């Protein structure tokens, strides 16, 4: 009786372990994805594989569906009324639209928005928000997480003396990096960035690009950008979107030096968009 039980326990443990391993994988694959906003067909038959621990950039003119696709990966589209998603999205080994657990998905997939959106609380509380959401209450543990996240975001030195100050007092660039630190605090395997530098000055932009280069060592980054030089500078792979379709998806150096499709070429050369 007891042996059986123990065997069962062990099997359960093993199952759990493989599930966890799967969840810790950091890649994304999309199969035949279609998305509708009411009657509007916003994403048309997207298939793509986003590799782990690389930077993948989405480029394309406004309204081409790149942000829409990005927001599918952590199901932020659920907030849009009348939004319907078809197809399979496997994020970190899990079919995310089959699972009901949106919160744990968002813990594993962090997001940084176009405009910095620090909460109106202290720097510390901002970074600790995610961990606290998932039940971490011990001060020591939180301290450690906050320090680690701010160090990862290369802000520890500038902020360590003002952790208790309101985050709204920081400059725009600092606020955005704080938001990245906040996203890093839940140790996500994947971070989604929706035009993270479009509201910032060139110097802050350079800092954030540098930051992206350092966090890709342990995290997958998917970034939407309007700035093609930025895509070329920081990404490993680039996808070009047009009218809801993925026109071309390849290694960044290939896409910028030798685009296969006429539309990609015209866009990259700046003839439209």
């Amino acid at each position, binding site marked *: 009786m007891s042996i059986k039980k123990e065997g069962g326990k062990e099997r359960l443990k093993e199952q759990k372990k493989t599930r966890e391993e799967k969840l810790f994988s950091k890649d994304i694959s999309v199969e035949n994805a279609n998305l509708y906003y009411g009657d509007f067909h916003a994403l048309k038959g997207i298939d793509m594989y986003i590799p782990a621990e690389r930077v993948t950039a989405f480029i394309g003119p406004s309204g081409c569906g790149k942000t829409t696709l990005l927001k599918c990966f952590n199901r932020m589209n659920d907030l849009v*009324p009348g939004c319907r998603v078809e197809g399979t999205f496997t994020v970190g080994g899990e079919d995310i639209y089959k699972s009901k657990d949106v919160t*744990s998905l968002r*813990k594993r997939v*962090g997001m940084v928005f176009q405009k910095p959106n620090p909460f109106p609380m202290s720097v510390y509380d901002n970074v600790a928000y995610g961990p606290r*959401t998932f039940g971490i209450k011990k001060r020591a543990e939180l301290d450690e997480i906050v320090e680690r996240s701010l160090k990862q975001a290369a802000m520890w030195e500038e902020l360590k003396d003002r952790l208790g100050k309101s985050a709204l007092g920081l400059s725009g660039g600092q606020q955005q990096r704080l938001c990245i630190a*906040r996203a890093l605090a*839940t140790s996500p395997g994947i971070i989604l960035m929706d035009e993270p530098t479009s509201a910032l000055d060139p110097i802050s932009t350079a800092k954030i690009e540098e930051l992206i280069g350092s966090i890709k060592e342990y995290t997958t980054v998917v970034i939407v950008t309007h700035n093609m030089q930025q895509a070329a500078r920081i990404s490993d792979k680039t996808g070009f979107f047009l009218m809801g379709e993925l026109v071309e998806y390849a290694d960044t150096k290939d896409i910028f030096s030798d685009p296969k499709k006429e539309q990609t070429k015209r866009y990259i050369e700046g003839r439209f968009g």
Partner: protein
Amino acid sequence: MEKNSIKEKCGKLLFAATAALCIAAAAAIFVFIIIKSVPALAETGVGEFLFGTTWAPDANDVYGQPLAGSYGILPMLVGTLVATVCALAVGGTLGFFTAVFLSYYCGGKVKAVFTSVINLLAGVPSVIFGFFGIKVIMPLFNALSPTGNSSGLLLTSVILGMMIFPTVASLSKTALEAVPSAYFEGALALGATRDQAVFRTVVPAAKSGITAAMILGVGRALGETMAVVMVAGNSPQFIGGLFTSFRTMTANIVLEMGYAGEVQMGALFATGGVLLVFVAITVVLLSLVTSDKKTKGRGGKRRGNFLLNGRRACFAGKVCGFVSAAFALAFLAALIIYLLVKGLPHISTQLLFGAYEYGGEISILPSVAATLMTVGISLVIALPLGICAAIFLNEYAGSKNPFVRVIRGAIDVLSGVPSIVYGLFGAVTFVTLLGGNYSIAAGALTISVMLLPTVIRATEESLRAVPMSLREGALALGAGKLRTVFTVVLPSALPGIIAAAILSVGRVMSESAPFMFTMGSSIQPMPEGAMSGGTTLAVLLYYLSGENLYTDEAYACACVLMFIVLLLNAAAEVMGRLLQRKFQGEKNVNKKRGRKRALERAKENA
């Protein structure tokens, strides 16, 4: 995780339930008033009640017996309507022109000062308006009256007009400022003068908003009770002229509820029912006016039908704007200075902290205690309910949801119901429920229902001011909706919610009609607990000003009440501004700057 989703569902259900409570409250008011008035209507006949010209109730009339008195409210119906129209003529005109002045002819500090003046006037308790009416304006008018007594239509119109003035002015101002500056610039570019651009382009574009402001003003005038009772003279007869005594429906209720017989009581409830019908009409009109997007399509037929047309006429409009604004400022200043001069010298320690003796020394201490208890109890009830309902409306419900529409309708109705009708409602529900005796608890429960729309609207406004990106940020970190609401949205909206609380305190302090038949209809001694009767400060002022024995004490009491209420309103305004500053979105800044620039450009052009 399962546990979390259950928690989320429970939260949503709880919020929805509190919002649904508004529907229940609005329905309950109608149902109880109707139930209480049907027997009386059956006894007198609906036609005889509505169109009978004599109101001579007999307190001994009971149901099922032949009636000795007669119960026709036509004189009071006419009185209410005429007084409302005259008040609109005074307050509506003043309000409109002041709004034009504020939005297009002044800026910076002048504008800030006048905006505060309007907000402060909006907060002045109606008993103070009435008190000011009998003590200051009436003696002035007495000289004009052939009988030497000027209580009647003219005095009532002026007082009621000044009471609806802030409503009309601030809402019209919002409507005028919402007109795109491109219209204004377009008119200037065609060679219109500044005045013409304002009166021929901007004002017509803001028409629906201004009409809505007028309708809300009408609603307030219809339902006003205490100030009218003090200045109208109150004989139940048809209006005979500017200086003859007349009675409104609200006054009818407040004057006779205290000692009414069975049928008489029913007839008073029926009077309340007629008021409710008027409220329903204004709410429907309002929703028609504010949703007239559909009717805009018929454009073609419209001809240049402007309020003012030529250069001179428009210039005259501008002058009216200056005069109205100056008049409003002068009125508030006169009110404050007069009360200060007359009241301050009589504020003594006996008055503030002494013992109250019947027929002897007056003290406001029992009233202060009763007021504080009422404020405390009603806040504990109304704030959580109102905040939860606002959370449901703003965070959970889509605007197209039919359930939400019904809730919004119910909130509109609740905010339109006259305070005296709340008094009737409280008398049949809470007083009965709490054992049939007048008590502070019953009064507090009544005013809690009345506060709901105030709290809900103010909270909703502050929730709307919280940027969407903050919610997205929290959700993207894996926080559930409840956690997002409680850790990010509510704390961000805190100044607005505090403002709502302060406004509510001011409202409880300044209301008097709902307390007359729930907390005691004569001056009460020191309350022993929530279950004993009480007299709030505003009600005390009403009683004192009715008896000519305690004039000095009445002034002192008015002084105290006025300044507490004004302080509270000023505090609420400051909190509101704090909230704005907290999230001063770039949009707003740009809009303001854009307008300023446009005005500067306009000045050069003109």
